[in-house]
């Protein structure tokens, strides 16, 4: 059971975790953690796995097997430089015109979950996340690098920026109550 826990933690971390950290997280004794971790190392070595658990000084790290190194590199390259999909381009465009925008707003506009798309845009340095204190939430904006890439000094130089930034359609979608109230006013 402790083995299972350590395995899950090493997978989730994706980076080295010290024995001390593993003890804290699993609430187990050092000797037990070390024994379980060593058992994991042996277990991963014994089966022909694409993943290994490496020990370095007093920490453990789940890594890809050296046999598949070139593949791992190809994957990493693909993650950061493959072509952007149409949904990703749409999200990037919305963030450019409408930013700073929350994930929830972006998802309302696109009508689909955007977790993976945002992750990809962040990895590529096209979008940055900031914590918006007044709204107590994370907001997303395009990066300076991306604005410069478009050949602009500021994002509001995008074509029709003023018109599109707070287009009535968006307001209706994101603030339906405010709209409904406005529309009801004359009728009352």
């Amino acid at each position: 059971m402790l083995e299972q826990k350590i395995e899950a933690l090493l997978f989730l971390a994706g980076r080295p975790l010290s024995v001390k950290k593993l003890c804290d997280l699993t609430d187990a004794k050092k000797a037990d953690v070390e024994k379980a971790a060593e058992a994991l190392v042996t277990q991963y070595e014994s089966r022909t796995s694409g993943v290994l658990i490496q020990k370095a000084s007093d920490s453990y790290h789940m890594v890809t097997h050296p046999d598949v190194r070139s593949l791992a590199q190809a994957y990493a390259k693909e993650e950061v430089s493959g072509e952007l999909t149409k949904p990703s381009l749409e999200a990037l465009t919305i963030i450019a015109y409408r930013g700073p925008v929350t994930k929830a707003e972006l998802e309302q506009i696109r009508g689909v979950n955007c977790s993976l798309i945002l992750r990809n845009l962040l990895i590529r340095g096209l979008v940055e996340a900031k914590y918006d204190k007044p709204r107590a939430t994370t907001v997303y904006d395009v990066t300076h690098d991306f604005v410069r890439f478009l050949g602009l000094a500021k994002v509001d130089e995008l074509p029709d920026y003023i018109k599109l930034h707070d287009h009535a359609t968006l307001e209706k979608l994101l603030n339906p109550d405010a709209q409904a109230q406005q529309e009801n006013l004359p009728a009352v």
Partner: protein
Amino acid sequence: MHSVKVHTFEGPLDLLLQLIEQEELDISQVALAHVTEQYLQALEKSDNISAEDLADFLVVAAKLLLIKSRILLPQLAVEGAEEASDLERQLKIFKEYLDASRGIAKIIHKRRFTFGRGKPAVMIEEKFSPPEGLEMGTMRELFLAVLRDIEPVIALPKAVIEKTVSISEKIEAIRALILDKALISFKSIMEDAKTKTDVIVSFLALLELVKQRSIVVKQGALFTDIAIHRLDSPSET
């Protein structure tokens, strides 16, 4: 007629199933005919049916009335057979998935959730990699396309309300027609009907009027046309 006690219902089939189960009946056309009145009652009493869903409730109401009329007036049923068995089958299938959804709720309740890392393993570094060839004009087009896609979402409730309104308008139209002619036949109403839905809507409207006691439906003999009389008009009986 005993009063209807139903829990909150999510849709027409959900309501129908509750009514049938409350009567301890199996799903059949007889059972559907049996609960037709209660269905209409629940519909009238309920204030938790959203405008978006009302049209769907009315479509099922029309089918129920067809089934009921088939059992009460078998000679009337020319096309109803298909509609009737459709609703029966639809309800049976719905029940299967409703039961399955309770099973899924149980599985979720066990909270055997799993978690992904959500980001790549540490070896992947952030690196500025812009989409080659992306131009500002393209972005503008993309944004306009996104706005166009939102339009139907905003218009959605309105579109459904329009569909619902057309059913009540049909009821009004028939009422006006009757007031005008005082005596017309069911056939002449049907002559204007272009689609099967039109027939259903007309029939629904007709039965609605009978229920409201504005008119009396009479049939001279078996297999003859049905005459519709306004209640305040002198009738030949």
